[in-house]
């Protein structure tokens, strides 16, 4: 029980801190919106082109915007050596990690849910009728990004170039999850049902999430202890 209690305590602490400072949220949201707008003005895609690039565009924006949130996740603990107080407390490494993942996930999903209507308006894409399968894809894809990103956020927290190192290390690992999320999103926005070929991508995304969550929970204690 203490695992869940500690995870929720850490997640609510991080969310409260972020809602007060809005450092990561503002940076991530404005970055995502600016990129969506710039792409729209730069390429002025036709309906057919939009259908082909929608998933890729959205998930690349989400992945880059996510890096801004993930970078702050452990970096905010460096001020006043707060990470030492957390690691020295009875909170286990996996509980600390899970709490941070939940907070990062909530922030990134919030950014994504704000971006979706903007994407729909500027690219003239109807997405509301596929909202629930899209939401499922968003949640699974975002969990993959946050799990891998949070581990590497802990790993790179003491590096001087952590803002550069985090995306450099994380994106190659995320390729299977991003591929699956891109294919699912493109298919759903093109009106395909969540069946047949899309089911395989869904299974890949679920498998990625399970494997990397298990790996992260097993490794995080070592990562935190150095």
């Amino acid at each position, binding site marked *: 029980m*203490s695992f869940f*209690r*500690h995870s929720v*305590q850490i997640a609510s*602490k991080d969310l*409260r*801190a972020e809602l*007060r*400072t809005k450092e990561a949220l503002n940076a991530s949201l404005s970055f995502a919106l600016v990129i969506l707008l710039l792409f729209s003005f730069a390429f002025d895609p036709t309906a057919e082109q939009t259908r082909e690039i929608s998933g890729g565009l959205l998930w690349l924006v989400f992945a880059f915007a996510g890096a801004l949130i993930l970078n702050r996740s452990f970096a905010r603990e460096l*001020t*006043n*050596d*707060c990470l*030492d*107080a*957390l*690691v*020295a*407390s*009875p*909170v*286990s490494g996996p509980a600390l990690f899970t709490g941070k993942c939940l907070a990062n996930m909530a922030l990134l999903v919030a950014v994504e849910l704000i971006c979706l209507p903007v994407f729909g308006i500027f690219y003239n894409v109807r997405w509301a009728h596929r909202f629930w399968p899209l939401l499922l894809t968003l949640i699974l894809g975002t969990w993959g990004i946050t799990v891998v990103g949070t581990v590497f956020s802990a790993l790179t927290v003491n590096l001087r170039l952590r803002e550069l190192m985090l995306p450099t290390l994380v994106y190659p690992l995320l390729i299977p999850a991003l591929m699956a999320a891109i294919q699912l999103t493109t298919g759903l926005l093109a009106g395909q049902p969540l069946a047949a070929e899309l089911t395989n991508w869904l299974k890949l995304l679920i498998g990625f999430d399970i494997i990397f969550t298990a790996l992260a929970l097993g490794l995080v*204690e070592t990562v935190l*202890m*150095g």
Partner: protein
Amino acid sequence: MTAVSAAGVWKYYGDYPALKNISLTVEPGSCLALLGRNGAGKTTLLRILAGLSQPSRGTVSIGGLAVRDPRARRNIGILGHGIAVYEEFSAYENLRLFAGLYGLADPHRAALEWLERTGLDRVKDGLVREFSRGMRQRLAVARAFLHNPHVLLLDEPFTALDDRAIAVLQNLLAEARSQNRTVILSTHQLREALELATHVALIQRGALAYAGERTPIMLEDPGWLYRNYGEA
């Protein structure tokens, strides 16, 4: 049962041995002063005892439990170089958070009690980033003592404290001693440390040069230990 035990502890940073085969035991109720020059390895040893860093070799236990066991960590209070409180939270929110993480029965009451004990009750809702240096230090002391730990690990606790924070900390340490709690403190301030300590350990270039009881001669002549066991 031994309060704190380190057996054959080595710590390497790359090829450099920061700690070399440190073995020591600290009994409940005693106060160990970890002495040594800058870079001797005091902070490294304290971090290992607190479970913040893994030894390259050797074992550490707190009250007979492995230091990473949550039951052991519940009994450790650490005051390090940083104040380890969140700038964007109020004093009350910080203490309430840590009281919750330590699983105290009534986190709200514990937070209020320690705010009062450290003289911060009137500014309990003020954000830490707006606090003076002295207020931050007292909050850090409250955070370390909040859960009534059996073992207190204090790294240079009096350095950079203002007069009021020193008084608060001295009172709390005296109370901890009277309650048979164990204190390990690293410091450069020989005289203050020797007055508090029941035991002394001198670390020299990562190795234990002396470990034993604090004797009257150390109090009379604080330089005695370095002259007899330290490097020239």
